[in-house]
């Protein structure tokens, strides 16, 4: 049970998922479905057990229910993040909105809202697993998706080789979003990454900045390859598409 980082590549065909869920029926159903889809399963019915199993087994991905009887979901996210960047997918009810956002801000990767379909859950887990390795960057630190390319050295964004005129703020936002392609970027994380800690004054306008950015990209993207590149997640932030649209 010592395989962790090096083991992940090997175990890719059968990734290990730690399922933390206190409701026995839900847990049993999820275990059944995910096992059938080729995951290796580790179960935990409360927070303490979850942390023990996580330490012992070092799973490839954690599926974490927020409403646990003993520990706060945030504590578990914090505990795991202190030691590893293992992807965490949150399971949340409709009325745990705030807790969910806080968990995502603290480093959880994604969420699924109850009641969820297993197909949706599977898709989220696979995306999370892919990005466990961290954002992809090109050799020179550049970022690219489809026809879009961002060059951090020359401070330049091009689509199909044509330059897109962005303000410094928009450039920075795009850089952070592209660096997190395929993941969920909360408003709080975006604010801290782009504005630093002095973001208070402009906090309300994050969404407007992104809308402007998206509009400029759409205007330069005649083929429509970049449509839905940056998707708003109401109340949370943005989801950036990982792969270019085929």
């Amino acid at each position, binding site marked *: 049970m010592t395989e962790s980082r090096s083991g992940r590549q090997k175990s890719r065909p059968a990734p290990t998922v730690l399922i933390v869920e206190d409701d026995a029926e839900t847990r049993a159903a999820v275990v059944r479905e995910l096992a059938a889809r080729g995951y290796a399963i580790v179960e935990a019915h409360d927070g303490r057990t979850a942390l023990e199993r996580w330490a012992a087994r070092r799973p490839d991905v954690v599926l974490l229910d927020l409403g646990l009887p003993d520990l706060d979901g945030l504590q578990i996210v914090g505990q795991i993040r202190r030691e590893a960047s293992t992807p965490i997918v949150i399971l949340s009810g409709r009325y745990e909105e705030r807790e969910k956002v806080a968990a995502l801000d603290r480093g959880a990767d994604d969420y699924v809202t109850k009641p969820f379909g297993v197909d949706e859950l599977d898709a989220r887990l696979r995306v999370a697993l892919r990005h466990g390795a961290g954002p992809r960057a090109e050799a020179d630190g550049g970022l690219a998706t489809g026809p879009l390319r961002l060059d951090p050295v020359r401070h330049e964004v091009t689509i199909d080789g044509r330059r897109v005129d962005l303000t410094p703020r928009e450039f920075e936002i795009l850089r952070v979003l592209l660096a997190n392609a395929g993941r969920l970027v909360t408003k709080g994380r975006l604010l801290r990454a782009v504005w630093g800690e002095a973001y208070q004054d402009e906090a*309300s*306008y994050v*969404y*407007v900045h992104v809308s*402007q950015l998206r509009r400029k990209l759409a*205007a330069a993207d005649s083929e429509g390859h970049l449509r839905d590149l940056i998707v708003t997640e*109401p109340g949370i932030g943005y989801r950036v598409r990982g792969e270019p649209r085929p």
Partner: protein
Amino acid sequence: MLVMARRVILPMRRSLFVAVATLVVATVAVAILQDGLGVPNPSAVYLVAVVATALVSGPVGAIAVSVASFLLYNWFFVEPRYTFTVAQPAEVLAILLLLFVGVVVGQLTALQRARTELARTREREARALFRLSRALATRETTAAALAEIATIIRDQAGMRRVWVSLGADEATERVATDTNAGEARPQPGTIATLRRMPGEAPAEWVRIHRPGVRPPSRARRSATTNRAAVSATYRVRIEASGASLGSIWALRDRNAPDPDRTETRLLAAAADQVGQALGHDRLVAERQAAEIARQSDAVKSALLQSVSHDLRTPLATIRAAAGSLRPGSGLSSDEQRESAEAIDREVEYLNRLVTNLLDLSRIDAGALIAERDVFELDDLVSRTMQRLRPRLADRPVEVAVTDRAVIVDPILLDQALTNIVENALKYAPAPAPLRIATTDLDGRIRLTVEDGGKGVPAESLGRLFEKFYRVPEKRPQSRAGTGIGLAVVRGLMEAMDGTATARQSELGGLAIDLELPATEVPAEIQSPSAGATRPTA
């Protein structure tokens, strides 16, 4: 105060003055008539003095002046003059008649004067009472009329200051109004309290000394330094059906006597009327509370009825579909997929229903808190519509939404918009078109969702957002709706400082207008190049 002064101080001096003056004038006139013009026995002139005095000072003055006239005439004009003896018997009769007529006329005049005075007092009292009842009748609540009532009492009952306190006893009484608000209220050692008598017997003032409060030296000193010696404190309890509701308090100048019968009657009447009005207020409040309780019971049973029906129907589908998925059910894999999809659909339906129910309870409890942010409206609307698109595939859908910035909670707006679109899906079946558009208003943006269904009768439009309201249907449907969705829409919108209203659509069906607070994006964020060629979603 002027009324009182005239009645108490002036009369004595004025009566004396009038009596002496009229007697002097009458004596001079008699002298001229009898000695100058030779008129025999003009003693009747003295009757003028008698009547004049009677008018001013009443029967006692009239008798006094009659006797004085009798003596003066006898002294000055009856032979032998300057004595009170009378020489001729005929003269005796004349002056005795003068005395008699003087007394009678004086009495009659004084009586007339008293009647006039009484009528005037009665009229003043009646007018004061009328103003009291008017003050109470024209106000929504008794509390609002109290200030006016206090002023009426002060002016009409000769008081210096009046305040009304409400409460069951003196300890819990709170001042509701005060004619001299801002001045410190005295803590008198002695209070004159009006004791009501049963039946017709007049009420009387009873002085009650309050232990613990020492009125003596200090109070008197401060009273004298405090201009007029204000201090006599009067209290009339306000009662209704035996329960004490408060008191009318009044201050009167110390040197003034206790309120007279009329003033006392006015105070008592004011207390009675306020008491009745307060009692009435209390009854109304109790009735309203009972009505609210009744309605909320009705709402609860309506909720249970509609929800249990709406829960049971999808549950029945799910159970049937789950049975068909069991191994050995003999269904083809296509049929099994259909069953699985039916379960998915019903679960989604139940999920929305439960979400709306929870939202409704949070709205009712005032626990729904919007977390608002600045968004470009088209961003949010297109996101919601993208999610709903699969269910809209069977009909023409037109979306044209402004990209102006609004201040909303994106989750609440998504929920509201979803409810409205689902409502349209349910009541305006395909191929009825659906249109979503916006209108720029001053400081707000109107987001309109309208359909080409058969619409809603005009009389139902105003009630669409009421809880559990359903437009009456000719044929009852198996899924008539819970009457929750649009009630939630209104609650969500109000939580965001928005509004939701309904009207007839030009498309033929229902149009729902959502108004949202808009905002301007600062120029440094708004990039000029993007502004010109902005497409609408």
